[in-house]
């Protein structure tokens, strides 16, 4: 039981990183990135290609150390975020959404079709795990990984808090709320947006690298659009514009996703499993609609920011 909870917590924390990255882009900057899974995939594959143990039929699989893979994954996603941002960032709202969505679909297709590098649909295995050889049981490794995740997520969370309270973060919010006013004050909206986009994408890339180094296997089927949807649902349910909400949303949505499966298994006999599974998905959909109906700003909404000079 504990072992499962540790595993579950690792997944939730990885998803939280994704949600935090998206929160920076959407919650604080207002960029509708519907291609979350694309950046996740770039991070994951960069790490996998660099750290997987060598195999003659693949171009990559360099067997490099775990840390190199993680850092390179972040660098590669930052670069990709910058390139994609350069082209798409001036698009607004739904247009940016569909453009980034298309980018994510294209990235997934590249991972599926570029077989010599990505292994195609066969995927890549034996991906670098951090200090895995020190642990004899999967529980030991998962526990260590959970500790690692807590440190990484904690650091990210703390750094994001700092950054958002800094002048840079305040400009982001200003642009989101009233672009004209911010531009009038001499801030380049485009530059700040692009920076937020790149930073958010980098976090998604980090999440991707951590996910594959936790699981040890990657294939294109890990990066279908449903993942983007799940991350968005986490942010919306938790409450966008609030990093605590982003983490809570990851816990609640993934908890419902996994927990409803357990509930259906307990309540429905195997002979009715197909119907039970359909009902499970219907329940997930209903819950999402209900949360939005009754808490349209998420479980934790954005904290109101009031100038401390307001009562002067």
């Amino acid at each position: 039981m504990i072992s499962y909870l540790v595993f579950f917590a690792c997944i939730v924390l990885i998803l939280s990183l994704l949600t935090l990255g998206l929160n920076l882009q959407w919650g604080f900057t207002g960029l509708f990135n519907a291609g979350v899974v694309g950046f996740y995939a770039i991070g994951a594959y960069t790490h996998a290609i660099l750290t997987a143990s060598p195999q003659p039929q693949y171009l990559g699989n360099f067997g490099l150390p775990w840390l190199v893979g993680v850092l390179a994954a972040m660098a590669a996603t930052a670069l990709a975020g910058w390139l994609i941002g350069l082209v798409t960032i001036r698009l607004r709202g739904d247009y940016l959404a569909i453009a980034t969505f298309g980018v994510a679909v294209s990235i997934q297709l590249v991972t599926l079709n570029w077989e010599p590098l990505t292994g195609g649909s066969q995927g890549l295995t034996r991906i670098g795990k951090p200090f895995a050889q020190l642990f004899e049981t999967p529980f030991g490794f998962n526990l260590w990984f959970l500790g690692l995740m807590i440190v990484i997520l904690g650091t990210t969370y703390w750094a994001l808090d700092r950054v958002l309270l800094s002048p840079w973060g305040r400009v982001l919010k200003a642009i989101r709320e009233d672009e004209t006013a911010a531009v009038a004050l001499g801030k380049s909206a485009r530059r700040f947006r692009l920076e937020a986009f790149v930073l958010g994408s980098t976090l998604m890339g980090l999440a991707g690298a951590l996910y594959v180094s936790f699981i040890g296997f990657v294939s294109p089927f890990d990066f279908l659009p449903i993942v983007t949807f799940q991350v968005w649902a986490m942010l919306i349910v938790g409450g966008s514009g609030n990093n605590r909400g982003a983490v809570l949303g990851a816990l609640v949505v993934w908890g419902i996703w996994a927990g409803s499966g357990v509930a259906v298994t307990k309540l429905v006999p195997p002979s009715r499993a197909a119907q039970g599974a359909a009902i499970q998905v219907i329940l997930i959909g209903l819950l999402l609609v209900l949360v939005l109906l009754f808490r349209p700003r998420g479980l934790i909404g954005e904290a109101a920011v009031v100038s401390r000079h307001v009562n002067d």
Partner: protein
Amino acid sequence: MERRGRSAVVSAVALVAGVLAAAPAAAQTCPVKIGGVLPLTGSMAPITKKIAQAAELAIEHVNAGGGVKGCPVQFILRDDQGQPTVGVDAAKYLVEVERVPAFTGTISSGVTGPIIASVTAPSKVVQITCCSTASPFTLDGRSGGYFFRTIPTSKTQAYATASETARRGMKKTVVVYINTDFGTDMLRFYKAAVAKLGGEVIAEVPYNDNQPSYRAEVTKALAAKPESLLLIGFPKDAVTIVREWLSLGGTKSIALNNSMRTMDFVNGVGAKFVEDVFGMDNAQVAGPHVDAFNKAFEEKFQADTKGPGVHTQYDALMVMALAMNISKDLTGPSIKDAVRRVHVPNGTPVGTGPAEFKKAVELIKAGKPIKYFGATGPIEFDANGDVTGPALVWKIKDGQIVTDRSITIEDMQTLFKRVEN
């Protein structure tokens, strides 16, 4: 706001914990638990229905035949939704919370792969799949020997297909294949075999599944002016592809893979339009063990057993239950070794159905070796955890799927030698 946020956290944790706490604590007494992970929803769901039924039937037969070590078997089936993260979570739940020492699953290799890497191999539990054919899973040692499959690898089927297309003198073949590990594997091995056995592939057109139309792919395939078609995929997409192929003037000389041996496909395209097609399948043609399974399935579900994964899923669970009986204890490593003792050369033959299972259990209790003949024929795993079974060629006659000829294990071994020297 602050308090609300905290109460939300608390209630979320309580929700998750509550759901998980509902699971009984792990204790290895009766009943014995066996896990299952299958895509009950999502794009693979249409073929999963019968596979899940076959699993249910196998568990019923096991229980009627005495269960495992005197205990009834409880089957816990989870949905992977065709999504890797969901599948891994489900498998992890089965192994860590329900404490199953062995489980069956799943279909899509994109889900099976991460399960092997993060659950099966590190936790040392036995996984037997009915359907994941990706060749590297067994070959590169990634599973530590804990992963088995009752379906022959794509290689077996691809070689058999090539021998049949060569025998029928099919020329100028275009291969339209699903862009997954299964499709690419089949294409690779088919091309290797055709080079040795005769025939030529003039164009290769991959397709991504779940599209509303395949006109573009079909048009591209027809542009090569082929005289025959080899279609590798799954029934739902294949119906659309074959109909578009025929209506755009494609040839009726079509070869198909095992998945299309289902009436859903034949009726979908229209029986009168597919009189000339033939296909391969891995199953044993006939014999008392196969018939017994077919009869039991038809009686229970009022449906025929034709369809991908039905026979292999039944065997996956029967093998698992037999191995658990043979194994000295119900731990992964012991069961893994016992899987190789369900088909011992000098063992007493046992077959499908509750009575045969009962017979097997009594033999095992008496310390005697057994030799299992399943719904797909003799189940003997090689060093990698793969089976090489016989194959059959099927065709459509008077709107029904009938067996054209069979390729015995001996024929198959000769075939392997000819292709691979």
